[in-house]
């Protein structure tokens, strides 16, 4: 049983504030991913939970115990580092046993636990090798093994997959997820890769400039981003944004950006009740913008194709809609070519609106 709670946590390095007022409750056995661009404070937050970094202000609780002043070794956590941090002069077995030896675990128990972990990770054959003799993926497994033998209350992962090649990364992602459900331990995972965040997290915390932008399940964040940053960060290719003017005609509201005109469906228009500004930022995900055959003014957008990017299961087209650059998903069998004129239809319910003054979702 270990829930992790951060209350009003701040971290300041001399004159730089790395983390501001971080509040989060991580449930027992939950897998939470901290994601954001580099320098957003995600790794610092993880290191504060680990006890490798002091907290400037606030409280961190692990299993209802304040750990602000508790040294890393007494927090009962295990951490997996990006560069694995294996001890190069020790064998795989010694690497995995090190933590247990430090805690004076009986030899027999150490042997049993290391073998058990090695079996789970499929590295039983490698126990007598040195890290130098292992591939990237194998080293990663050893690093994981070193964490799981200790049976900690909380696992902390600091971009553990970013040194692996793309294919291995996908494979390890799945394995990590399986491992987590098998071990049922609270996990905090830091990454800058939005795909990793989306696929692995029970919940995702999106951070920027030391501030939490939004916390939620992957689909909550994807479908209802709190601001343009979250909307643009999650999803690949990222969401199309353009600024538009609001044209009110009685109860109906239309969006106008240059020659582009879109009528908002009533439920979206209702959101704008009481909205005082006359401009909004419109966000449409590429997959919610599909080519159709017929142009319906107010419902569709006419555009010229600039670049076609087939990626196999989908073809993305970069278009220019009278000065507004957009990316649209044209389906895997698309025959669209550059310089073609296309008609794109956004799915009305999937149009996101943001306030240009503070970038927040309306």
């Amino acid at each position: 049983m270990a829930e992790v709670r951060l209350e009003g946590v701040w971290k300041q390095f001399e004159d730089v504030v790395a983390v501001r007022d971080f509040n989060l409750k991580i449930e027992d056995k939950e897998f939470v991913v901290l994601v954001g661009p580099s320098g957003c404070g995600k790794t610092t937050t993880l290191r504060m939970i680990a006890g490798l970094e002091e907290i400037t202000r606030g409280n961190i609780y692990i299993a209802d115990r304040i750990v602000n002043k508790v040294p890393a070794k007494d927090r009962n956590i295990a951490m997996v580092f990006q560069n694995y941090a294996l001890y190069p002069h020790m064998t795989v077995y010694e690497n995995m046993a090190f933590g247990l030896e430090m805690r004076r675990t009986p030899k027999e128990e150490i042997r049993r636990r290391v073998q058990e972990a090695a079996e789970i990770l499929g590295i039983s054959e490698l126990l007598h090798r040195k890290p130098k003799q292992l591939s990237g993926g194998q080293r990663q497994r050893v690093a994981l093994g070193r964490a799981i033998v200790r049976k900690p209350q909380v696992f902390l992962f600091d971009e553990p997959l970013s040194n692996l090649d793309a294919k291995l990364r996908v494979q390890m992602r799945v394995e990590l997820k399986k491992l987590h459900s098998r071990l049922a331990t609270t996990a905090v995972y830091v990454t800058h890769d939005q795909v990793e965040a989306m696929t692995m997290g029970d919940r995702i915390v999106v951070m920027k400039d030391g501030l939490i932008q939004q916390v939620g399940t992957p689909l909550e964040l994807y479908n209802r981003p709190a601001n343009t940053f979250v909307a643009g960060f999650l999803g690949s290719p990222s969401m199309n944004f353009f600024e538009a003017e609001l044209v009110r005609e009685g109860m109906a509201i239309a969006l106008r950006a240059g020659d582009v005109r879109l009528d908002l469906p009533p439920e979206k228009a209702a959101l704008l009740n009481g909205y005082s500004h006359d401009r909004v930022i419109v966000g449409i995900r590429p997959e919610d913008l599909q080519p159709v055959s017929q142009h319906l003014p107010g419902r569709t957008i006419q555009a010229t194709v600039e670049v076609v990017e087939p990626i196999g299961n989908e073809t993305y087209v970069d278009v220019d809609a009278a000065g507004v650059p957009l990316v649209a998903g044209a389906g895997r069998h698309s025959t669209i070519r550059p310089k073609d004129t296309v008609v794109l239809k956004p799915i009305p319910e999937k149009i996101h609106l943001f306030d240009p003054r503070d970038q927040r979702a309306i």
Partner: protein
Amino acid sequence: MVGETKTQKLIKFYIPLALYLFFLLFPFYWMVNTVFKSDNEMYNLELNPFYIHSPTLENIVHLFTRTIFFKWMANTFFVAILSTLIALGASLLAAYAIQRLRFKTSQPTGVAIFLSYLVPQTILFIPLAHVIFQLRLWDSLWSLVLTYPTFLVPFCTWLLMGYFKSIPKEMEECAMIDGASRVRIFTKIILPLCLPGILSAAIFCFTLSWNEYIYALAFISDTYKKTVPIGLVTELVRGDVYHWGPLMAGALCASVPVALVYSFFVEHYVAGMTGALKE
């Protein structure tokens, strides 16, 4: 390089290398050349000086029987080994602290240590002489054991700082989370990983102490307590008479231990100068 002709290679690589080797090795050749010549041959200007006409061991016999060369060697070993150990102990701790423990003055401390290395020995020996006198260590080998670290520690500290820097911090942090104390991390992780660096530092210290001249000359006057460099020069140069043969024999014998130390550890030594962890 690809596409270089043999002549280009010769001009760019082999000829400069040959010149360099000649420059480095000629003194050794001269030393060996002189050791095995008799005085008569040495001073005979008719003979080719680069060649030994009638080899003799008389210079070596002179060195071994008419001076206390072995006592000097023992003294030098004693001083070099002890001061190396002291310097290593101090610089390992200093370098680790400056590099890894975050304290406000860690950077200035590092610079200060380096600056102390820049003070010439020829100036430093004056105040040090006073200290040695106060400590009543005048004319004792301990005066050298204690003063050599003054130039060994700064050098080793800087060498080891660079070495510690190349060990990923995460490794220590991981050990810390694993439950190891600072001391455990230092002995179980850092020291084994830094062995090549420590060896190079040790070799450096040993060589510098072995060859040291100024302090030994200033602090020791008893013949029985001299180190090799001083013993040879003071006992085999009498006024304006240079006993070249025994002098060179002494120089040759004294360079053997250093050469052995280097050749045993040359691989570690190179690794130590080029950083810690290569995967």
